[in-house]
């Protein structure tokens, strides 16, 4: 009898090439995504005169810098066009497949990966992007790495890692109507803090997690890094298998059936021990928004901006003061009194079809009081949304419907908010300047962003929908 193991350990153990006495393991990497930002790593290969060791396991995608208002690089900012072209050159030189700017399957790496079936249960996946944790939704070990590590994986298809601790986050009970995976994630981060899961691999479990669609699980795992977690995972089940089946790069036919057999053995054993367990009452989660400059600065929408004078811990009080100052808020201000200047619906956190449907359900037949941008997570999501007529709902509401890319999640492509502007956003980071120098970001679910667009201020989507019910 082998000792009971967690989902994480089963996958980890399967990928160890070599265990070193000092606790480091050399891990085999099954899938490696590279994007425009990986240019530093390709430069390192050139310096060494090295080749990509397993180009077939490497997947190039243009997403971080791609223009969303034109697909013609000749009309894009020359610096941005250069980044996209550099990726084209680097992948072509190294024989790496590329989903480039004008590929109909192009999208944000963490949307396109699952969509194309590159993401499967039981794998190890890395990418030079911290939200690589997204792919853990399928029950796979997926995490972000830096440029030196990207170069290492390109050259060796392996990575040195120390086995992280294991944390289980159990969402007991069922979500109330209108509550989404985004609210679950923000509530969890607010509970443990932005470094609360540092050094841990998270497994999300419990009834509310089991009940999530793959889209919801992807959102939940996406935000793992915002709690400091090394990665986030959900045990693979029928929901995951059904999503994977028939995807272009997923195993097919008999190979699929055999894969499902292997995947079915992955969930944590009943007696498996976790280093830490956090239990959250799912039924108590309300629509949640951030007020500050860290994802941990999250509160239910009926809350008020904290008063630093009432925070006992000096460094936490200082953080709150800084945040309130940057965000242009007042202690004690009701969140629903905070007026917004624009909205953004997009990013690998919340730009899948289900997210767009949720936002469109709120915006249908209504006008947005403020301008905003809707950027689907992939061109396939975009086509699907257009088939369903969602694009018309957004444009008739007064929002701009553009092509897929990271866009205002990180602003590298020039889609940014102006200094001092307040943006209700479906993204993952409310860091200072993340959406442009001086821009102020409030994170929330797609339906809540749509509600903010309609109200022109932070608003409880349940009230807006209730008005017409």
């Amino acid at each position, binding site marked *: 009898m082998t000792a009971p193991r967690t989902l994480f350990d089963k996958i980890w153990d399967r990928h160890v090439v070599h265990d070193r006495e000092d606790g480091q393991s050399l891990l085999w990497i099954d899938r490696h995504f590279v994007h425009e930002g990986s240019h530093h790593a390709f430069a390192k290969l050139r310096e060494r005169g090295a080749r990509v060791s397993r180009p077939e396991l490497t997947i190039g995608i243009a997403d971080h810098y791609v223009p969303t208002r034109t697909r013609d690089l000749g009309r894009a900012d020359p610096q941005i066009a250069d980044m996209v072209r550099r990726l084209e050159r680097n992948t072509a030189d190294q024989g790496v497949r590329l989903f480039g700017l004008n590929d109909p399957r192009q999208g944000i790496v963490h949307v396109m990966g699952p969509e194309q079936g590159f993401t499967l249960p039981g794998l190890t996946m890395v990418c030079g992007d911290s939200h690589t944790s997204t792919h853990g939704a399928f029950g796979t070990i997926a995490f972000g790495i*830096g440029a*030196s590590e990207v170069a290492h994986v390109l050259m060796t298809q*392996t990575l040195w890692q120390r086995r992280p601790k294991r944390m289980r986050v159990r969402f007991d009970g069922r979500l109330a109507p209108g509550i989404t995976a985004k609210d679950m994630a923000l509530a969890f981060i607010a509970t443990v803090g932005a470094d609360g899961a*540092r050094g841990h691999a998270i497994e999300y479990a419990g009834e509310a997690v089991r009940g999530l669609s793959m889209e919801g699980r992807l959102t939940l795992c996406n935000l793992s890094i915002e709690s*400091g977690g090394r990665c986030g995972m959900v045990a693979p089940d029928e929901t995951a298998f059904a999503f994977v089946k028939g995807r272009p790069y997923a195993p097919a036919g008999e190979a699929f059936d055999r894969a499902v057999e292997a995947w079915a053995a992955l969930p944590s054993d009943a007696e498996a021990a976790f280093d830490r367990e956090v239990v959250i009452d799912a039924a108590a989660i309300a629509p949640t928004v951030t007020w500050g400059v*860290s994802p941990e600065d999250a509160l239910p929408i009926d809350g008020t901006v904290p008063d630093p004078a009432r925070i006992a811990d000096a460094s936490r009080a200082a953080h709150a003061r800084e945040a309130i100052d940057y965000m242009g808020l007042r202690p004690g201000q009701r969140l629903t009194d905070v007026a917004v200047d624009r909205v953004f619906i997009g990013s690998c956190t919340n730009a899948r079809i289900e997210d767009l449907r949720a936002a469109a359900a709120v915006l249908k037949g209504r006008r947005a009081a403020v301008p905003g941008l809707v950027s689907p997570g992939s061109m396939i999501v975009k086509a699907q949304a257009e088939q369903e007529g969602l694009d018309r709902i957004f444009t008739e509401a007064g929002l701009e419907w553009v092509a897929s890319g990271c866009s205002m999640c990180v602003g590298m492509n020039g889609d940014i908010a102006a200094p001092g502007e307040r943006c209700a956003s479906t993204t993952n980071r409310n860091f200072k300047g993340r959406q442009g120098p001086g821009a102020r970001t409030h994170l929330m679910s797609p339906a809540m962003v749509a509600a903010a667009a309609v109200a022109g201020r932070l608003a409880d989507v349940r009230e807006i929908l209730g008005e017409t019910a």
Partner: protein
Amino acid sequence: MQPFVELTAPACPLPLSNVDTDQLIPARFMSRPRAEGYGDFLLHDLRREAGGALDPDFPLNAHPGAKILVARRNFGCGSSREAAVYALADFGFACVIAPSFGDIFASNAVNNGVLPATVEEAEAETLLAAVGAGAELTVDLAAQEIRGAGPALRFTVDPVWRTKLLNGWDDVDLTLSHAEAIAAFATADAAARPWAQLRAERGGGSA
């Protein structure tokens, strides 16, 4: 990589928590080649006033020549951008002392010879006060000690990272010495997990 053994240098206090990588280097500067130097971009937007001039009161500007940075909890949280470390290193920092670090940032730091030294929150406050008053610090990696702010303080660092920094080792060389084990793993794995394999695409796919 330059080994890190012991460093005695002026230090800079940064009494902020959650200094994320977007603050360490805003995304708009990351398309440049490293050879151009990233030091000017370090904390670019925090260091400047609205008009773009350097804010003389911002710690980084008030402590020229600092090689050690002392900050509050969760330093380097956020994105995986190694450019955050390039900016620190090119500015002159070889060590950051804080109560906790973002995981990816810390490993990026070590891969660039920059030491992430972890201390207790109270010790970080002591160091911030001392350094703010102009104290020079000595960071001794062999002894895992920080001296120069009252009694010597012990810091923690992953033992593997410590060895790597002390010797200035590069992972790739080390890994290539395991090339046979990697090849053997790949062969066995292809047979054991056929479903996990991907085939090459002719021409590397579409553009």
